[in-house]
């Protein structure tokens, strides 16, 4: 049985009242989803809250669930929509950083220790997070889904509701933007 069929079977079992089925879904997807949201939001507590909301929505729709789309695609679509809603709600999307603000922020991160070959891991993580968060929303989602979740362009297009060629373009532009932002690391 394929992984996708297993997920559908689990959802059907959940629909039928099997209490352990939801635990199976949690076991399989809680970590990937929480990390996906964390990379998008950047706040651990908020990421956990949103992840809980994602699984609550899955639980709520157990009775009306129809396996029309791939289960994981559906799950990531819920997570993506909640992340976008959250970002819009708090209105502090990193897209709002101007070029100068971002370079100042990056400078702050790297000023304590100049960038050397032995750059602290935490510092490096912080720089990557800031650079990622400065990408436009759709570019960030597409790149995160590809790099961290290893989703195909087809799946990303279903999650974002756009064409495969649009996804290709989004990821290409995201990488070009990141290349500029992270170029100083080569120094």
């Amino acid at each position, binding site marked *: 049985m394929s992984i996708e069929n297993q997920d559908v079977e689990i959802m059907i079992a959940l629909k039928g009242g099997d209490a352990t089925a939801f635990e199976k879904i949690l076991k399989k997807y809680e970590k990937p989803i929480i990390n996906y949201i964390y990379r998008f939001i950047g706040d651990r507590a908020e990421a956990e809250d949103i992840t809980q909301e994602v699984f609550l929505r899955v639980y709520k729709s157990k009775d009306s669930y129809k396996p029309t789309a791939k289960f994981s695609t559906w799950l990531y679509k819920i997570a993506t929509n909640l992340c976008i809603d959250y970002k819009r709600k708090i209105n502090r999307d990193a897209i709002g950083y101007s070029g100068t603000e971002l370079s100042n922020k990056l400078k702050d991160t790297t000023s304590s220790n100049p960038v050397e070959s032995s750059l602290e891991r935490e510092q490096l993580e912080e720089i990557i997070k800031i650079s990622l968060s400065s990408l436009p929303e759709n570019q960030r989602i597409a790149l995160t889904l590809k790099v*961290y979740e290893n989703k195909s362009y087809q799946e990303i297009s279903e999650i974002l509701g756009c064409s495969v060629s649009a996804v290709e373009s989004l990821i290409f532009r995201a990488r070009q933007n990141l290349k500029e932002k992270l170029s100083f690391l080569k120094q």
Partner: protein
Amino acid sequence: MSLNRLNCEKIKRKLSAYIDGEINIPKKDIISNHIEKCHICKGELSVLIKQNDLLREIKNIEPSLGFRTGLWEKIKEWERLKQENEEAIKKTRLKWLLPVSAFGVIAFFVIFAFTLLIPLAYGFSSVKKHEPIYFVVNAFSSLHQKNILAPINLINYCNNCCKALCKCYQSKTNKGCICGGCENEHKN
């Protein structure tokens, strides 16, 4: 346009999809051949691969200990609210069920009684013994069957009443139609 004829700039645009394994085999071979020969595109590819590795430097986080407990609390809370809502809906339905059905029954009997009594009001009861039944059957005939509550049924009912009354009048007085509807029926 074939990728063979593309310049470096166009190959560079495909490198992102190339490292993601999203290029079909013929195009992949063309790009691979080009990269072998072109040091600029080779350099660009290496930058993209390094960037990917760098992005993967972000560590994964683990859900906190209270994550599942919090989730199950939210689920229980939702189930409690759902149950409360269902009970409230049930109560509302039960609350209205008796008055609405009572009103329906009363309305039906009022209309039925009115239909029975209306020929008497016009003094047509003595014509035939079966007159009241004949009247009721005629008054309720040709109603819209699919939707008994349709407003057209009230109009049909009034028309039928008039026609039935007219027929009573005709049989009692041996005169012609006075409502106009019976004449139309004969013509048709």
